[in-house]
C-alpha cells in the first residue's frame, strides 16, 4: 500500500509534534483536576522560554505575605492569549485562577488572571 506523501510525512512527524505540544515537562506536580483562586500582588512577571513565571505575593491564613511561583504558558502561547511582557508589572494587584501544586505548596500552573481593571486573560 502506498501512502500519499502528506500522510506519510505527517505519520513521521507525529511523535515529534506530540512531544512539542506537551511542553518541556509534564505537569505531574500540578493538580489539574482542581482550580483554586489566589489574590495577590505581582512581584515579578517573566515572559520567557520554555514557559513564563508570575511571582505573586499572597497573604496566608496568618496574614504573612508568601511568594507563590505560578508557571505560565510559553511566550508564543501567552502572546496568542493577549499577553505582553508588561501586561502585569510589579505592584499590580490581581486575582489568579491556578491548578495548585498537588502537595499544597506555594505554586501552581496559572490558568487565568483577572486584572484590577476587570480584564481577564487566559494563560494556556
Amino acid at each position, binding site marked *: 500500500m502506498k501512502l500519499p506523501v502528506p500522510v506519510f510525512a505527517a505519520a513521521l512527524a507525529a511523535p515529534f509534534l506530540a512531544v512539542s505540544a506537551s511542553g*518541556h*515537562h509534564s505537569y*505531574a506536580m500540578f493538580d489539574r483536576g482542581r482550580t483554586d483562586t489566589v489574590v495577590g500582588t505581582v512581584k515579578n512577571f517573566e515572559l520567557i522560554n520554555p514557559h513564563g513565571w508570575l511571582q505573586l505575593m499572597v497573604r496566608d491564613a496568618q496574614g504573612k505575605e508568601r511568594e507563590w*511561583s505560578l508557571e505560565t504558558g510559553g511566550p508564543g502561547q501567552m502572546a496568542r492569549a493577549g499577553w505582553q511582557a508588561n501586561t502585569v508589572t510589579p505592584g499590580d494587584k490581581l486575582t489568579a485562577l491556578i491548578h495548585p501544586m498537588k*502537595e499544597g*505548596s*506555594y505554586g501552581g500552573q496559572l490558568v487565568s488572571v483577572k486584572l484590577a481593571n476587570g480584564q481577564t486573560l487566559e494563560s494556556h
Partner: protein
Amino acid sequence: MRVLILVAALLAPLPAMAQAWQRYAYPEHGFVVQLPAPPTLTKGQFRTAAGATVPATVYTLNEPDIVFSMTVADFTQTSMNRDAALADAVKAYGATGQIKLNVEERVNQEYGRQLTLVGNDGSRSNVSVFFVNNRLYELQGKALPPEPAAGAGKAVRFQQSLSFVPLGTTGPGHGGPPGQAGPL
C-alpha cells in the same frame, strides 16, 4: 551632619526588589536550571546505596530562606541502571524525612521522579531525581526552617525550571558562556 545623613541612607534597608532569575547552562552535565544568582560548584564523591562511591559535582546556592542544589553523580564507570538508581535515590531521601508526594515526571525526553519532602529538620523540599546518560541528577530546593513557607515558592520554581540538553551544548537560546547567566 550631611555625612551622618549619607551614612544613614546607605545603611537603611533597601526597598524590596524583585530578584532577577537567570538561566544557567552546564554543557558538561547536559542540564539547564534557573536561579536567582550563580551557584557555586564543588567536586566530591557520591555514596551509593550499596556503599560504593562515584565522582559527583554539586552546584549549590545558599539564600537565607532556601538552599538550591543540584548533584550530578557520575555512574558511567558502573553498571547501575536507571530504575535502581532512582529507587535508591528516593529511598535515601525518605531516610531524611517524610515524602509527601512521589510522582513520575517527564522533563524533555527524560523520565524521573519528583518528590515533596518534609525534612526531619523542619525543612520542606521540592526534589527531582533523574538518571540520564548514566548520571544521577538530584535537584533539591530546600526551604529552610524555622519558616519553610518563606522559601517554598522559590523551591517550586527551581524544580520546574530544570531542562535537559544534549551533552556539550547549552540548549537553545543560551547566549552566555557555560555556567554563567544567560538570557531566560
